[in-house]
């Protein structure tokens, strides 16, 4: 039996153990997400504009996570709005950073892996790098956004007399807790990748300065940092939009 088959089976059983209905729903949504991701990858490989494809993909994925796994309500609608705003703001920064730091393409350590291919593929790898950063930040960003909007909703339900500024402030407070744990999760997720890379650097006698300037290292680091910045940026934006939506809802 293949290793991944066993792991998939194990994951599915654990999900059902936690909760039957939610578990099946979650597993299906992961399968969906996988199919969508592969579709985006394939469209990009066909030669469509990578940035537009990945933005569209991010939107569809957030839509599924928010409205299918959770429900369509005032909280998730506010979250979706915030995520779109974050994506638009970050798009420019990501494009600028990728363009000036030239982290597109492969570093030396991948040459062995890719030398079976021809490199004349007529796709600008700068755009591919931008797409990668965009797609990798969407999961973490959706996660912190939904955490804030639902916590804020609970606060509001328990105390309907809170003013707009008080509500925004408690949203920011909730955000602080989420921020620390999410930075941790992201960092360790990347540390696994870094481990092999660092062992390679060590075996090749790289100095600290060599490592910092190496393409793969810089690319990975920039990718983590953008995921983290996405999480940070979504906090005030979600707090603001959810507050507004709740207050507006009260007036009607």
């Amino acid at each position, binding site marked *: 039996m293949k290793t991944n088959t066993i792991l998939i089976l194990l994951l599915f059983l654990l999900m059902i153990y*936690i909760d039957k209905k939610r578990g099946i729903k979650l597993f299906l949504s992961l399968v969906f997400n996988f199919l969508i991701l592969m579709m985006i990858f394939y469209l990009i490989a066909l030669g469509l504009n990578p940035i537009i494809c990945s933005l569209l993909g991010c939107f569809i994925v957030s839509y599924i996570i928010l409205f299918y796994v959770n429900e369509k309500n005032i909280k998730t609608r506010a979250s979706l709005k915030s995520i779109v705003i974050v994506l638009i703001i970050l798009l420019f920064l990501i494009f600028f950073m990728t363009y000036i730091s030239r982290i597109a*393409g492969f570093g030396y350590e991948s040459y062995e892996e890719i030398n079976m291919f021809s490199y004349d*593929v007529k796709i600008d790898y700068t755009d591919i790098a931008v*797409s990668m950063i965009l797609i990798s930040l969407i999961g973490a960003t959706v996660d912190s956004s939904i955490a804030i909007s639902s916590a804020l909703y609970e606060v509001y339900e328990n105390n309907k007399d809170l003013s707009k500024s008080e509500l925004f402030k408690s949203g920011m407070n909730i955000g602080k807790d989420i921020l620390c744990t999410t930075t941790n999760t*992201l960092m360790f*997720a990347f540390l696994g990748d870094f481990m092999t890379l660092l062992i390679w650097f060590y075996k090749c006698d790289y100095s600290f300065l060599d490592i910092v300037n190496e393409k793969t290292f810089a690319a990975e680091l920039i990718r983590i940092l953008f995921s983290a910045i996405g999480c940070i940026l979504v906090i005030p934006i979600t707090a603001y939009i959810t507050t507004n939506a709740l207050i507006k809802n009260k007036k009607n």
Partner: protein
Amino acid sequence: MKKIIIVMLFFVSIFFLFFVYNNDFLYSKEIMKIKNIKVMNEETLENTVGLKEKHYTKKITGIITNGKNKNKKKSLLYEETYSSVITDKYRVGDKVILSGNDIELKRDFYVALLIVIFVNSIYIVGSFKGLLSIISVVLNLIIFYIGLYLYFKGINLLFITVIEMIAFGILSLSLASGINKKTLSAIISVIISTFVMMILLLTVVKITNYKGINFNEISFLTVPLEDVILPELLIGTVGAIMDVAITMSSSISELVDKDKNISVKKLNKSSKEIGKDIMSTMSNVLFFTYLCAGLPIFVLAIRNGFSIYNYISTNFTLELSRFLIGSIGIIMTIPISTFVSIKLMKRGVK
């Protein structure tokens, strides 16, 4: 108070960036600032699928900015392509590091720039807590580095990794939420989960012997793969495990604080609800972070005429296992931390 620190942070950042931009004297290799780029030759190449692409040979001229050849002019040739799969596009004004005939862009300034943006924004949004989480990241990196150092000295990497994971847990959790019962129960959960995950992975690997996982992606390693792969997979999960453990234990301690006489049965029921919510959102974080790492090589393969099915079933496997193991870690931690927290918080109560 916060405003003063923001201003201070801003000035430190500016100084730091200025330093990194002008740190050429630290390098032992020569650094050149590009003054002029000229196209020398142009040719069109075609790949097996018939995609045509132009290759340029360019001559760059620049001034050396460090070492004994400082201020001397130098020029050299390099190749540039539209796709830049393994080449880079240089521009006038770039600083490049020269080593033999290879040139590499001096990227440290750009990395520093993004780090500065990150640190400043985490402070603005997260205040003191945000800074604490950065300190914890730095300390963890130091532990990680020490671990690697010990590995090169010949100690088993899996052993080091398990010790490290426990150290990460203790350090990050006590920094993030102080030293109290909540943290203690989260730390115990992290330790138990780490061991459970390790035993589970060892068993799965023993049964399947990595069947179906393609290690091309890390084929560059010169050390035995069996040494590295399991620790790598394990260490990727510890962040998520900690996240789940602390969320569970603080929610349960909140419940106990609100109602001191709450029964264990009722606690179990509420924790189950909290667990469900955590499960739904956490898996997504890892999913995209891991799986999108396969994009560049996927595009390369498809544009070289590979079929999509063949490619996914043979080459996408390592990323998938990373994600699966991370998610299993998350979900496994939910019942473990529920059990530990309830046992600890309701100790002595029947």
